[in-house]
């Protein structure tokens, strides 16, 4: 009887502490986007995004500085900032949301498919989005990754006629982050 109670308590403790450190954080999340048209391929990278995941309530937040996106071509970077994203007016893009599927993550499972839902704010416009991704618990860290698309027109971004064929209507966004426990 005693052993049953003890093992019961241990099991309970085990389940409570399944995700040991509840909050994970990084300031070096990689966010990149890719626009593919027959005319031109455009990509840009940002390696200084912040990401926080709280496994207690499964909340997840990202923030990026628009000006920190680096393009291969300086001219594209200039147009991106000045004409399309108006980064002097809207310096940041953010995502605030929740892991909705599965409703409970286990640290013991390794790599798991997840679904995240929340508000993506780009160019000062809020949109509700749902994105697929994976979360992987390693010994010390948590790896988060996702690939999803956004429609440029959803965010009031005006692309002038002359370059309309050079920029995709839907841009693919890739997120890759290694998060450390927040002490």
């Amino acid at each position, binding site marked *: 009887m005693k052993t049953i109670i003890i093992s019961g308590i241990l099991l309970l403790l085990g389940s409570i502490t399944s995700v040991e450190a509840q909050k994970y954080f990084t*300031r*070096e999340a990689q966010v990149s986007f890719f626009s593919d048209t027959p005319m031109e391929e455009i990509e840009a990278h940002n*390696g*200084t995004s912040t990401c926080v995941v709280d496994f207690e309530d499964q909340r997840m937040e990202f923030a990026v500085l628009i000006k920190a996106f680096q393009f291969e071509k*300086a001219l594209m970077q200039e147009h991106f900032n000045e004409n399309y994203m108006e980064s002097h007016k809207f310096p940041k893009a953010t995502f605030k949301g929740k892991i909705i599927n599965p409703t409970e993550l286990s640290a013991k499972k390794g790599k798991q498919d997840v679904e995240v839902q929340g508000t993506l704010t780009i160019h000062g416009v809020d949109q509700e989005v749902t994105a697929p991704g994976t979360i992987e618990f390693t010994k010390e860290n948590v790896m988060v990754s996702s690939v999803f698309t956004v429609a440029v027109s959803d965010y009031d971004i005006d692309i002038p006629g002359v370059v309309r064929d050079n920029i995709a209507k839907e841009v693919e966004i890739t997120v890759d982050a290694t998060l450390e426990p927040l002490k």
Partner: protein
Amino acid sequence: MNIRNVLIVLLIAVLIGGLIGYQQYNKPHRNLMSEEVTAQVTAQELFSDYEEDESTANEKYLDEMVEVTGKIERVNVEQEKSTIQLKTDHMMAGIICEFEAGELTNIPAEGDTITVRGICTGKLMDVVLVRCILMNS
């Protein structure tokens, strides 16, 4: 004869236009070594300016080439881009300096005091500088 002259002038105009367009399309990124430094600050000064008033700080630093001196809190070397975090009196946040791939040849150690040039892109938790160049170590 007249038409021929007009055609030649047109052809030259188109060639020049095309050349200018091509050069614009391929114009290089800002060269931080030849640009003038807009502000020379310590990591703490830059951070405090942003803590006090973000929009005033943005007017002063955003998109500008800033030279920052500070003590290294953390170095994160990656194959693509590396980052160095400079200390401030804030417990969690500081200055993040991002270096393009191959830029950081001599990697300084945590605790070293360094001077870095970079383009200020604003503040999330930390103030972020991109396309950084290490001035000394």
